[in-house]
């Protein structure tokens, strides 16, 4: 029996209509109360203002939103964050496509080994992986000890707490996710189609460019979308590996809310990132279909 007829059979039973709704209700209610209502509150907060004494005036005002335009700092942080997201995603594609391709074309035994080794870093806590760069790049770290020992440098190099380490840490975090998604895309390509292209006279490179790559594109693009979203909201990486002058969006929002306690501005900044994300998801959905993203997460 197909799933459709199974579903039809179950629906014919007397409780068939009320039951599924009752089963879904708790989950939907939790998400409604703890995600959707808060997002609406966020919108409301962004139209309120905070007085210098810290009280929030609950009257409609565009003052908070005006600061987005008048204060160039917000724009520059946003731009830095988009650059970070874009560049890290591109680096992950360039670095990760090869290993994903090897995984997809390897013999089953090797594929198993490569998959497990890929899951290892993604199981390990994001925070632990991020802080693991500190003893590698620190003043007395692995790299500096090696360089000093080899006599390449005389003073330890200041490698940590700059834009470079933020990029490095983020790529380190995102790479397994990107490789996995590219691999899932490549795994759906039917090898007989590639073989057919080869028989018809295409060389290996032509077959890859004309057949494999376009067929595997949904995996690659899902990986790009996930990495881009994750890097837009990144907070932990710049907090640990960044230094003075490396403010990214997540740190800006965190400081605004938890240190300056300026909730209307923090709400406004969160709304901005949500609107940009929804626009991104909309464009992505138009071209690739959102279901490809969900498929990637499932694995």
């Amino acid at each position: 029996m197909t799933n459709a007829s199974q579903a039809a059979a179950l629906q014919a039973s007397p409780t068939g209509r009320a039951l599924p709704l009752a089963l879904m209700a708790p989950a939907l209610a939790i998400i409604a109360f703890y995600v959707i209502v808060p997002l609406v509150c966020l919108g409301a907060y962004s139209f309120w203002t905070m007085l210098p004494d810290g009280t929030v005036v609950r009257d409609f005002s565009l003052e908070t939103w005006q600061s987005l335009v008048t204060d160039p700092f917000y724009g520059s942080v946003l731009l830095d964050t988009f650059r970070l997201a874009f560049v890290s995603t591109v680096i992950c594609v360039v670095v990760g496509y090869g290993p994903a391709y090897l995984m997809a074309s390897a013999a089953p035994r090797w594929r198993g080994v490569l998959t497990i080794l890929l899951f290892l870093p993604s199981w390990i806590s994001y925070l632990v992986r991020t802080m693991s760069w500190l003893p590698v790049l620190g003043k007395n770290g692995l790299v500096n000890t090696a360089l000093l020992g080899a006599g390449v440098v005389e003073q330890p190099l200041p490698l940590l707490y700059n834009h470079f380490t933020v990029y490095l840490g983020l790529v380190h975090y995102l790479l397994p996710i990107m490789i996995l998604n590219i691999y899932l895309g490549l795994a759906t390509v039917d090898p007989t189609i590639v073989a057919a292209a080869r028989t018809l006279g295409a060389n290996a490179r032509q077959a890859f460019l004309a057949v494999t790559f376009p067929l595997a594109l949904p995996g690659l693009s899902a990986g790009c979308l996930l990495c881009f979203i994750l890097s837009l909201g990144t907070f932990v990486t710049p907090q640990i590996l960044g230094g003075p002058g490396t403010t990214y969006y997540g740190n800006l929002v965190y400081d605004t809310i938890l240190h300056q306690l300026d909730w209307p501005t923090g709400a406004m900044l969160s709304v901005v990132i949500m609107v940009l994300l929804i626009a991104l998801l909309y464009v992505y959905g138009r071209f690739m279909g959102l279901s490809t993203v969900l498929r990637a997460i499932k694995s």
Partner: protein
Amino acid sequence: MIRARLFRYALAAWTVLVYVFMLAPVVVIVLLAFNGAPGGNFPISNLTFDWFGKVLTDKTLLASLRTSFILAAAASSIATVVGVAAAYALARYRIRGQTVSELVLTLPLLIPHLVMGVALLLSFRLFGLSKNFGLLVMGHVVIVLPFVVLTTRHQLQSVPAVLEEAAWTLGANRLQTMREIVLPLALPAILTGMLFAFMASFDEVTATLFWRPPGTETVQTQIMALLQFEVDQRIDALGALLVVFSVVVPFAALLVARLLSNRQANKT
């Protein structure tokens, strides 16, 4: 032919480099945890287990570990009960608004934790609630719920509906059918989903920083706090313990899931 060979070798070499990049820093943390040298950095000398002892007798760290476990256990249990019910409905029934429900159930995956953190915190305040542990747990439930739904849905779909119908025909009511037929068959997937949920909650940092009540520290927020200062190798030892934990637990769980499904395969 030779070029194809060379390409293959180059690709393999590149892959090795990429994997080393992904894993090496973690190995460094684990090695440093055994470093007895003062200053706590390279070169490693005086191998010792002392740092692990110091972690396991440090009251603050132990308290944060306990908080993390309680939080993750509570959040993943609630998410599993609620999520499996929803996944069953999605897998078994054609309902109006199915696509919308699916989208809503996976929505938390597409929202940055940062935004979820801010939004929920501000709405607590708006409704006059003060931060408490229960709200922190519910926040984590929302974050891990999609993992449960997505991992169990597929497996529930593959339990043949005929088996359920047979049970009904034989006089079992819906609850009995659920308990005797559906849940045992889907158990490996449910446990996997719960494990994913547990690990996701255990590793969460960003939103937790917004939601935790004053004075409550999870392991992750505790590490964030420790990193503000110069710390000794206790942090490496703690990191090493977490690495071992997050590697061993999923492997053990996979093994249990495989054993369970083998036993079922033998039964049928």
